[in-house]
């Protein structure tokens, strides 16, 4: 590490606890997944050909890779767009982006029938009209750029031309990758709940919110919930005492959350109002208690984060980021399942929605990526000085 960088150690006891939870969760969930899948394979899922085809593991995948995208955006505030107030978060965000990306693709790998075949079949076939193919290519580019960028800043190189270019390349790759993930769903004309040309934009917006909430939550956890233990620039960023108010976390958080709430409300109201066949899925969505938890949680978080009286408080920020992440996860589940609850071709004889409850194996494919993410993060926090920033 070069001399022009400073590093401050977060709470070692918290990180140790996180790594224990991460490793124990990984081992336990992996054991359960293997026990169930080794004999039954995907019959241990509650997905069916005439019902829900993409279940909870796909929602988990979408949640984690979206969060990874958002974390890269947060890192890019400082490193690509020159908003220096965000630099104290950059290195941690890049590592977290890597951890969440690994988590997301772990869920996907267990969901695929032949994950290893994908490695050769995707590049050799290269179906240019398939959004899923492009998603694979762009995510590969993203992870390469992300790791190279991390390597640069880990060596203390924040400002060289090569380092900047890698930052820009990661930003562009993840923007395109994520927009393509939006298209995987948004291009499906036969599924009106998803079909929307602006779905990539919606995905990018919710990804940003997800990244912001995750960055805030993990930063507080790293320092044991004690802001006074953080380096001063990081404290200022979270407190909102930066020289320019708009370049502070409370303002950015509440703004992005507000815009996301408008987008969510617009989509929901249009869906519930319209008589378009397939939009019955919106009725399914809003009638679930989970939707109430999602909506109330995010609205409460918005009001807490927008009020100058509360938005700088540690407890409020922790609660808001947790509520937002919970809401977004429920949102991903509603989104992935909602596109399938109205059967595409069942005619009049199926009046009701398809029922689906994830199986134990599918739940374990949420625990596994989450634990893996925590373990990878803890390793980074212990060994890679994630609090480092350029000394300027």
């Amino acid at each position, binding site marked *: 590490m070069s001399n022009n960088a400073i590093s401050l150690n977060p709470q070692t006891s918290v990180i140790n606890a996180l790594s224990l939870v991460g490793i124990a969760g990984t081992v336990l969930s992996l054991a359960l997944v293997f026990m169930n899948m080794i004999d*039954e*394979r*995907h*019959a241990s*899922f*509650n*997905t*069916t*050909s*005439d019902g829900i*085809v*993409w279940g909870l593991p796909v929602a988990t995948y979408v949640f984690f890779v979206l969060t990874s995208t958002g974390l890269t955006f947060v890192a890019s505030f400082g490193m690509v767009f020159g908003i220096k107030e965000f630099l104290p978060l950059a290195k941690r965000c890049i590592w977290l982006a890597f951890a969440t990306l690994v988590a997301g693709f772990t869920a996907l790998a267990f969901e*695929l*029938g*032949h*994950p290893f*075949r*994908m490695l050769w*079949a*995707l590049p050799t*076939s*290269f*179906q240019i*009209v*398939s*959004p*899923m*193919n492009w998603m*694979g290519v762009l995510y590969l580019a993203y992870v390469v750029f992300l790791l190279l960028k991390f390597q640069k800043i880990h060596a203390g190189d924040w400002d060289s031309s090569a380092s900047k270019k890698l930052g820009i390349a990661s930003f562009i790759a993840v923007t395109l990758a994520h927009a393509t993930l939006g298209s*995987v769903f948004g291009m*499906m*004309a*036969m*599924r009106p709940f998803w079909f929307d040309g602006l779905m990539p934009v919606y995905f990018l917006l919710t990804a940003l919110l997800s990244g912001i909430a995750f960055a805030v939550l993990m930063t507080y956890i790293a320092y044991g919930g004690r802001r006074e233990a953080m380096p001063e620039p990081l404290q200022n960023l979270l407190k909102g005492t930066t020289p320019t108010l708009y370049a502070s976390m409370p303002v950015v958080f509440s703004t992005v959350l507000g815009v996301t709430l408008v987008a969510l409300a617009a989509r929901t109201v249009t869906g519930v109002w319209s*008589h378009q*066949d397939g939009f*019955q899925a919106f*009725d399914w969505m809003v009638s679930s208690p989970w939707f109430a938890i999602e909506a109330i949680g995010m609205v409460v978080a918005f009001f807490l984060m927008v009020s100058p009286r509360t938005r700088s408080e540690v407890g409020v920020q922790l609660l808001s980021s947790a509520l937002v992440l919970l809401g977004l996860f429920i949102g991903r589940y509603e989104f992935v399942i909602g*596109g*399938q609850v*109205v*059967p*595409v*071709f*069942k*005619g*009049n*004889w*199926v*009046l009701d929605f398809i029922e689906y409850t994830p199986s134990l194996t599918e739940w374990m494919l949420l625990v596994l990526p989450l634990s893996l993410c925590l373990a990878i993060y803890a390793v980074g926090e212990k060994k890679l000085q994630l609090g480092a920033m350029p000394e300027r």
Partner: protein
Amino acid sequence: MAKWGMVIDLDKCTGCQACTVACGMENNRLPGENWQDVLFYHEGEFPSGTLKWFPRPCMHCENPSCAEVCPTRATYKTEDGFVLIDWNKCIGCKYCMIACPYGVRFYTDEKAQIQPDIKQVFKSDGKRSWNPPWRAPDNRDDWQHGVGIQPIGVVSKCTFCYHRVSKAPKGTADLDPKNPALREFTPACVLTCAPSARYFGDLSNPHSEVSKLIASKRGVRLRDHTGNKPQVYYLTGGAAGTIPTDRRGKKA
């Protein structure tokens, strides 16, 4: 090059499901997982409700959305109109099942729909996902065209009996089951249809029976608004078998 297609006359279809059974025998379908299915439903309410049915194979679309979304080109459209799956390339992502507007695709590894689980009775030989003693000989397996008993982790679907139809003499306009010379090339569901409600032939040949029926009896395609343009056409005068109207909305 032929462009194979099917016409199903719903006014002749009796809903006997012989097509489903014949397909199951021909292609070793799992119980309850029918490549060719007949869907039963009712329209209207008591006392004027009526029982309806609808036979449904894969539509082998002109613009198959399943092939367009497949990231590995495992699902593909042949020059002569078949939509097939190469089981050597399928990664089991199930995107095709999401993209199919007709729900005619099946993933191998799922809970058995009917007990006992016949896959457990005739367990996998390591190659096929299950291994019944009545299956076709090994040399008829053709995984590149999705013919045979599928391996684990892939998606399967109706092949229009590719293993039969692809061997038909060049220039054949219609695979008429009444013509003994052509019976071995005719799809199993067409061959077995007792009321002769199914016709199979070359849609690109204006003199074929299928082309004439579509023209003279106003053949319609299912969910044509999706732009998939099925190569399965239905003739209907509104008798028993009918094309289902859109689902009654819950908000109606």
